[in-house]
């Protein structure tokens, strides 16, 4: 009897051990079943609505290509990029991935992603992909991802508040400050500007410093001036930051020192703040939450030299260098980037489509998108620059600015020291890149 028990226990142990070991070697390809190929795809800018839209496109793709199955991974937004890095670093199977303007240089430097030029050469719709979209996905002279839409900042303002106060929408940063200050009335819990001092605060500081530096900026290496100094070392940068401090102190809610995207938009929709600088992906929630006619859009405000520098940002689909199914992966990227799918996705999610043909659509020519098109028609005032995505430290820059910027706003450090730190950061980036 005991012997029998022993045999059973031994067997159980063996099964458990084998199971455990098998579990450890988790390299699952396509399961070896027939010719069906499984592509693993991961997104980065995850949000519930976006995931749903992408999933719907994938389903459509799978129906059109019964031999390809797509396994779609959607990690939570704040962990997504680290998850992608870990998967790439540990050689897990991954075929299609969402590459961001922020991460592309790093992925290319590590040899994680495949240049797409040989594929786009044979792609008939590539001709209508806009130059800006191509530039966002390009490192050196190679294209590494096809953007799935572009983000570009513009101004949103409470037209009813401005009308009530007899004001016009501001066109310069100085005017923006004056207008915002006039709209501010803490007793009524009303503030002029929807400030962002938390995650993503460099969106405002960099925009102001670039606008103030104006013509001095090297458009191909935007953290530096044409003389090779950083944009943070100039007297213009100091002037910009002085205005920035005033903007926080006189025209923004004190709490906004911690605000990120969500709070910033919420303050605008709930009637706490009157002016918001944001990308078009907020348009939908403004349309949903605010009464029509209470808000409107305007182009970005300019600096003292009459120029506003802007960069279109974006993320898009790339293919991993180690993918075993590159042809199929490209098929998927091509499908997702086709004019029909991309235009639909851009409309549904609030992005600028990547195909220039799509901007002919009435949808983008009227309403809140119109100012974006207007801006692109005035290239002398609204100057497009290439963000410094080639530097490996770009991804960390947001965190550095947020922390030093918050202690500046709190009065824990002074303006000179802060700008010096920023200057040193980019000087350091440049030297590391040269090595």
């Amino acid at each position: 009897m005991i012997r029998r028990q022993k045999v059973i226990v031994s067997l159980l142990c063996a099964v458990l051990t084998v199971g455990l070991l098998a579990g450890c070697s988790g390299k699952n390809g396509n399961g070896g079943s027939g010719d069906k190929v499984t592509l693993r795809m991961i997104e980065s800018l995850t949000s519930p609505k976006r995931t749903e839209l992408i999933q719907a496109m994938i389903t459509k793709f799978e129906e059109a290509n019964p031999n390809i199955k797509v396994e779609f991974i959607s990690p939570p937004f704040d962990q997504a990029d680290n998850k992608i890095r870990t998967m790439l670093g540990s050689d897990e199977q991954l075929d299609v991935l969402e590459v961001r303007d922020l991460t592309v240089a790093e992925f290319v430097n590590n040899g994680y992603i495949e240049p797409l030029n040989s594929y786009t050469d044979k792609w008939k719709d590539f001709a209508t992909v806009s130059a800006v979209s191509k530039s966002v996905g390009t490192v050196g002279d190679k294209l590494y991802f096809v953007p799935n839409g572009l983000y570009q900042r513009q101004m949103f303002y409470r037209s009813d508040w401005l009308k009530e106060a007899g004001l016009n929408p501001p066109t310069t940063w100085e005017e923006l400050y004056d207008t915002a200050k006039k709209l501010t009335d803490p007793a009524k819990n009303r503030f002029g500007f929807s400030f962002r001092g938390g995650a993503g605060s460099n969106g405002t500081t960099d925009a102001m410093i670039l606008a103030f530096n104006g013509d001095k900026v090297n458009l191909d290496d935007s953290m530096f001036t044409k003389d090779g100094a950083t944009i943070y070392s100039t007297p213009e940068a100091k002037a910009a930051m002085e205005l920035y401090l005033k903007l926080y102190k006189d025209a923004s809610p004190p709490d906004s020192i911690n605000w990120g995207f969500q709070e910033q938009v919420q303050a605008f929709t709930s009637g706490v703040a009157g002016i918001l600088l944001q990308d078009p992906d907020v348009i939908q929630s403004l349309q949903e939450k605010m009464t029509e006619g209470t808000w409107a859009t305007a182009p970005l405000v300019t600096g003292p030299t009459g120029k506003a520098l802007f960069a279109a940002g974006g993320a898009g689909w790339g293919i991993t260098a180690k993918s075993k199914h590159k042809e199929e992966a490209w098929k998927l990227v091509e499908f997702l980037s086709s004019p029909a799918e991309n235009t639909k996705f851009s409309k549904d999610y609030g992005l600028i489509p990547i195909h220039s043909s799509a901007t002919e659509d009435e949808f983008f020519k009227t309403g809140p998108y119109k100012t974006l098109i207007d801006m692109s028609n005035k290239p002398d005032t609204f100057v497009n620059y290439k963000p410094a995505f080639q530097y490996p430290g770009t991804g960390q820059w947001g965190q550095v600015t947020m922390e030093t910027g918050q202690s500046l706003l709190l009065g824990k450090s002074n303006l000179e020291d802060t700008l010096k730190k920023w200057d040193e950061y980019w000087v350091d980036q440049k030297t590391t890149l040269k090595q």
Partner: protein
Amino acid sequence: MKKQRAFILSGLIPALLLVLAFTYYPFLKGIVMAFQEYKLFDLRSVHFVGIDNFKAAFKDPKFIMALQNSGYWVVISLFFQFFLGLTLALLMKKQFRGRGIYQGFVFYSWALSGFLIGMIWKWMFNSQIGVINDLLLKLGIIEERIGFLSNPHWAMFSVIIANVWYGVAFFAIMLLAALQSVPSELYEAAVMDGASGVRKLWNVTLPYIMPTIIATTLLRAIWIFNDPTIIYGLTNGGPAGSTHILSSLMLDKIIYGGDYGAASAIGIIMIAILLLYTIFFLSVTKAEKAGEF
């Protein structure tokens, strides 16, 4: 006999493998990483750097601040959680109508995730649209809205309040269970000896539930020390790093910096602090009592 031993050993293998894979491997890997430059952005240049990560931590003002904050965070939170929890448990021990429902309400906070609590309190503390400022204004206690989360003097205080609210239920549950196990004969005997309410609490109740008190405060202190979720949800460590505790700073190093080396070094320092704390706590409270829990 030898065969028997071999059999037992072979039977232990799966369990051992599981423990090795999921407990000791990450632990050892963490120790190794603490001595490496290990950045997710640059996995190709992972190399040993000796104790550089530790040196960098102690030179970093943010780390020193997080160390101090961890002290306030644990001591103040634990103190209020315990006393409020004990008060609630004593109140709930009495029989009254609707006690079950009342208990449900009290324990509710314990069922929420720390991150969610952080998010809820973040909106409540909001200086423009938050309910707390609104209430204080309407009650005439304050004249101007307070930036609970934006003013560094208030921020740490605010996250501690949220944490106290969260942990009271834990103590209430545990202490209520202990209170209900105190034999009624003890109270009867105390009454015969002429003991008053306070004396009964002091001489009968507290000594009887002491093992539970010791075990729960020990455990809870470790949890509070290790749990960054409320801080993460509420302030993300801000403004300007003023609400970071060690565990949230460690997470910060990973999420925003991808710096596993620096994060592991902080992790090792945390383990050392906890070890010292546990040894101290158990020797002060006479460890054998806690074992009866």
